[in-house]
C-alpha cells in the first residue's frame, strides 16, 4: 500500500485535487474580475490616448531623427513658420502669410524672401516669440557642432537678417522654389533659452523643451508614455482636448489589441498589421483609416555595377516583375501601385505613365538583345559577368522578404539569379547604402525636399556621394537631360510649368529605371468612432500635424 501511495494517485485524491483546483481558479477568476474593473471605465473625453510602437527620445525639433514618433512632440510643442495642409497647400503658422511673388514676400528674381511674423505669440514660459528666434534657429541649423538632421534648403541661404522684431529677410544663393518645404520641416526653437547652452546636443532642453505649440509637456514616463497638457495661450486657439497622452507599446499586435480593447483611442505608427486590416474595418465603434504615407517602395539598382550599367537591362529586369501581384498578395492590396517616385495622387504625378509589368517574355528578349545570353547553368552572362546579384533590405520584415522571394522567382524564370542578403537596419542603411556598396536594395523613401517633386538629391549626377562626397544619389545614376530638368524644376514658380518638367523627369526615370517603383506606402490606423478632427495628410509623415484640432464628438 505504501508504495502505491507514493508512486501513484488514487481516484479519490485525484478528484479532491481537481475540486480544489477548480475552487482556487474560481476564487482567482473572481479576484481578477475585480482587478479588471477599471479597464471598462467610461470614455474620458478630456484626453486622447495616441498609441505608437516607437518611443521618441529626442524632443528638440532640430535634432530628432525618428520621423513618425518624434514628430509627435514636435507637433504638440512647436510651430513652423508655415505648415502644409491635407490638400498640399502651404498655410501660415508663425508667419503672418506664406511668402510668394504675388504678395511681395519673394523678389522677382526669386532670391530674396521676406517673412512677416505674427505678433503676440508667446513661448510656453511666457517669453515673446520674435524674429531673433527664427534667426537663432537658422544659425543653429548651420552650426557644424550641432547634430542637426539635415540642412537641406538652408545651405542656400547666403544671408539672413532680422529687419525688425517681427520681420526676417533671407537672401538665397539661387532661386529655389522648394525652399518653402525647408521651413515647413524645421520648427522654431527659443533663442532666449538655447543661446545660453554650451552644447545643444546634450542640453537638458532636449528632454524638457519649451515651445510655442498647442501643448506643453507635463510628464514623461520612460518606456511608457508622455503626457501633454493644453497650452491655454496657443496663438491658433487652445487645443480641443485638455491633454494628449502619447503611449508607447512596442509590439504591433499588442498595440492593435489595445486599440480593440479601448486602452488607446488612436492607433498610429506602425499601424494595424496588413493582414488584420479587413478585421479592423469591422470592429464596432472603431473607424479604420488608410493613411497615405509619403514613402514609395523601390528596388534600387546600383547603376555602376556591370550588371546594371545598361538602362535597357534595368528596364528588362523591372518589367519581368509582378509588381501588382506583390502588392495584392503580400500587402493585401493596402499599398497602391505607383510608377514614379511620387504617389499617384500627388499633384505632380505624371498620369501618362503606363504600366508595363509583368512581361517576362519581353524582358527575356530585351536581355538577349543587350547581349546577356543564357549560359550552361541557366544564368545569363555577358563578357564573363554573370547576371547574379544580391538584394538587401532591413532583416526581419516579413512583407519585404515576401516581395524579395516573389521577385527572385520572377527573375529566375528569365535566367537572372538574385540572392537575398538582408541585414539589420543599422548595417544596411549605413555605409553599405551611402557608399553604394549594394547590388540592389528594397527600400521605401519619400521625396527629398518635403513633398515637393524635386528629386535632385537622389537623381542628379552631381549628387553621387561616392564621386562627389555630396548628395544621396546612391544608385549612381547619371543622365544629362535629367540633370538639366532637375536644375530647371527648382527655379520654376508656375505650378503648370513645374508639372511638365517633373512629368518628363518621371518619364525618363521609368524608361531608364535607376530605381524601380513598386508601390506607395499606406498605414492602417484605427481610431474610436467618436474622435473628431483627424485629417489624413499625405504630404506629411505624421498624423498629428493638426493635433490641436483633435477632439471628441
Amino acid at each position, binding site marked *: 500500500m505504501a508504495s502505491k501511495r507514493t508512486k501513484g494517485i488514487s481516484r479519490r485524491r485525484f478528484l479532491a485535487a481537481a475540486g480544489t483546483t477548480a475552487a482556487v481558479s474560481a476564487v482567482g477568476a473572481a479576484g481578477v474580475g475585480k482587478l479588471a474593473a477599471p479597464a471598462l471605465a467610461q470614455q474620458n473625453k478630456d484626453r486622447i490616448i495616441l498609441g505608437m510602437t516607437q518611443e521618441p527620445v529626442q524632443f528638440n525639433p532640430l535634432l530628432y531623427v525618428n*520621423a513618425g514618433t518624434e514628430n509627435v512632440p514636435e507637433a504638440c510643442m512647436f510651430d513652423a513658420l508655415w505648415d502644409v495642409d491635407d490638400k498640399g497647400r502651404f498655410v501660415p503658422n508663425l508667419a503672418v502669410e506664406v511668402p510668394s511673388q504675388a504678395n511681395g514676400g519673394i523678389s522677382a528674381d526669386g532670391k530674396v524672401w521676406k517673412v512677416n511674423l505674427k505678433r503676440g505669440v508667446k513661448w510656453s514660459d511666457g517669453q515673446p516669440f520674435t524674429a531673433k528666434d527664427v534667426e537663432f534657429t537658422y544659425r543653429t541649423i548651420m552650426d557644424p557642432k550641432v547634430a542637426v538632421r539635415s540642412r537641406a534648403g538652408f545651405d542656400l541661404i547666403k544671408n539672413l537678417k532680422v529687419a525688425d522684431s517681427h520681420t526676417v529677410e533671407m537672401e538665397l544663393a539661387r532661386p529655389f522654389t522648394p525652399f518653402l518645404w525647408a521651413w515647413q520641416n524645421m520648427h522654431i526653437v527659443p533663442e532666449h533659452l538655447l543661446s545660453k547652452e554650451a552644447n545643444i546636443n546634450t542640453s537638458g532642453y532636449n528632454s524638457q523643451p519649451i515651445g510655442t505649440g498647442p501643448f506643453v509637456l507635463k510628464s514623461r514616463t*520612460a518606456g511608457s508614455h508622455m503626457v501633454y497638457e493644453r497650452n491655454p495661450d496657443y496663438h491658433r486657439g487652445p487645443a480641443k482636448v485638455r491633454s494628449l497622452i502619447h503611449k508607447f507599446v512596442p509590439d504591433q499586435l499588442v498595440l492593435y489589441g489595445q486599440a480593440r480593447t479601448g486602452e488607446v483611442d488612436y492607433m498610429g505608427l506602425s499601424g494595424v498589421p496588413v493582414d488584420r486590416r479587413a478585421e479592423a474595418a469591422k470592429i464596432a465603434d472603431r473607424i479604420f483609416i488608410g493613411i497615405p504615407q509619403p514613402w514609395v517602395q523601390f528596388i534600387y539598382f546600383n547603376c555602376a555595377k556591370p550588371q546594371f550599367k545598361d538602362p535597357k537591362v534595368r528596364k528588362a529586369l523591372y518589367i519581368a516583375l509582378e509588381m501588382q501581384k506583390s502588392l495584392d498578395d503580400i500587402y493585401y492590396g493596402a499599398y497602391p501601385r505607383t510608377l514614379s517616385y511620387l504617389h499617384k495622387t500627388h499633384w505632380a504625378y505624371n498620369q501618362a505613365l503606363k504600366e508595363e509589368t509583368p512581361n517576362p517574355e519581353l524582358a527575356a528578349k530585351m536581355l538577349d538583345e543587350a547581349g546577356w545570353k543564357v549560359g550552361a547553368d541557366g544564368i545569363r552572362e555577358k563578357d564573363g559577368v554573370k547576371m547574379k546579384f544580391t538584394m538587401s533590405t532591413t532583416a526581419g520584415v516579413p512583407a519585404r522578404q515576401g516581395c524579395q522571394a516573389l521577385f527572385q522567382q520572377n527573375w529566375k524564370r528569365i535566367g537572372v539569379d538574385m540572392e537575398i542578403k538582408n541585414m539589420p537596419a543599422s548595417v544596411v542603411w549605413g555605409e553599405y547604402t551611402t557608399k553604394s556598396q549594394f547590388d540592389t536594395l528594397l527600400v521605401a523613401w519619400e521625396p527629398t525636399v518635403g513633398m515637393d517633386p524635386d528629386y535632385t538629391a537622389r537623381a542628379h549626377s552631381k549628387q553621387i556621394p561616392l564621386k562627389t562626397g555630396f548628395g544621396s544619389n546612391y544608385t549612381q545614376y547619371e543622365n544629362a537631360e535629367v540633370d538639366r530638368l532637375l536644375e530647371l524644376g527648382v527655379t520654376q514658380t508656375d505650378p503648370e510649368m513645374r508639372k511638365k518638367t517633373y512629368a518628363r523627369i518621371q518619364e525618363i526615370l521609368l524608361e531608364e529605371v535607376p530605381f524601380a517603383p513598386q508601390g506607395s506606402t499606406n498605414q492602417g490606423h484605427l481610431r474610436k468612432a467618436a474622435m473628431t478632427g483627424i485629417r489624413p495628410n499625405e504630404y506629411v509623415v505624421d498624423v498629428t500635424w493638426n493635433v490641436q484640432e483633435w477632439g471628441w464628438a
Partner: protein
Amino acid sequence: MLSYIARRLLHAIPLLVGVSVIGFGLMHLAPGGPLAVYTLNPTITSQDIDRIRVALGLDQPLHLQYLGWAGGMLTGSWGHTFFGGRPVLTVILERVPATLLLMGSALSLAIVLGLAIGILGAVRRYSLFDYLATTGALVALSFPTFWFGLMAIFLFAVELRWLPTGGMFELGEEGNPLDLLRHLVLPTLVLALVITATWSRYARSSFLEVMHQDYMRTARAKGLRRHEILFRHAFPNAVKPLIALLGVELPFLFSGALVTETIFGWPGMGRLFVDALAMKEYPILMGMVMFTAVFVIVGNLLADVAIALIDPRVRLQ
C-alpha cells in the same frame, strides 16, 4: 570572510576593465552604426552625415573614443546618449525600478513554485505528478516566451478582458498599487512560467542526487520522520547548487527580460536594451554592459558567501 570579499572585489577591477574593452571593441567592430538611422531621412546628404559623425565624436580613432568613455566612467560620468543627449546613468536608473519589480516578482514566484515542484517530483519520482511536471517543464521551455505572452494577452486581455494588455499603470492611475498589481499579473506569470520550469528541473535533479546518498539511508534507518529527513538533511545539501544558480540569475533582476518587456510594453531595462541596440546607442549599451557586469560579479560573490554560510565544510580563502 571580510578579507575574502575584499579580495574578490579587487579581482573584479581587472575583470570589469576586460569586459569594457571587449564590449566596446565588439560593439564597434559589428557592422553598421548609429549614423545609419540618419540615412533613412531623405533630405540628408553625405556631408550632413560626416558633420554629425564629428558632432557625436564618432570620427575619432577607436582607442581615443574608448579612453574618453573610460575616463568619464572613472569620474562618474557615464556619457550622454547619441539621440536625445541625455545622461546615460539617468536613462538607465529610470528603468531600474520597473525591471526590479517585474523580475523580482517573477523570480520569487518561480523559485517558490520551482522548488516545490522539483522537491515533490523528486520525492514522488515516476508518479503522475512527476510525469506531468516533467512534461509541463518541457513544454514551457520549448515554446518561445513571446508566444506565451501573445496567447496570454489574447486570452486574458483581448477576449476575456480580465487584465490589461500591457504597460505598468492605467493612464491616470500612476501610483495606484491595485492597478500596478493588475498590470503585473500577466508579465509575471509568463516570465515565471519559464523560470519555474528551469528551477523545477534543477531542484528535482539536485534533490534526487542527495536523496540517494548514504547518510540519507542512515537517516531513514534511524527512523526519522519523512519531513525531518527532507528538510533537515536533504534540503541544506540539495539547495547549494540552487544558490549558485540564483547567483547567476541575480543580474537578470537588473538587466531585465528583453522579450517579455517588449511584448507587455513594460518600461524596463530589457526594452531599453532592445531600443538601444536597434539604434546602436553605444553609450547606453556600454552603460548597460557595465551595469550587468557589476551585478554578475556581485551575484556570484553573494552565492559563494551564502554557500559558505550554510555549509561549514566550505572555507573561503
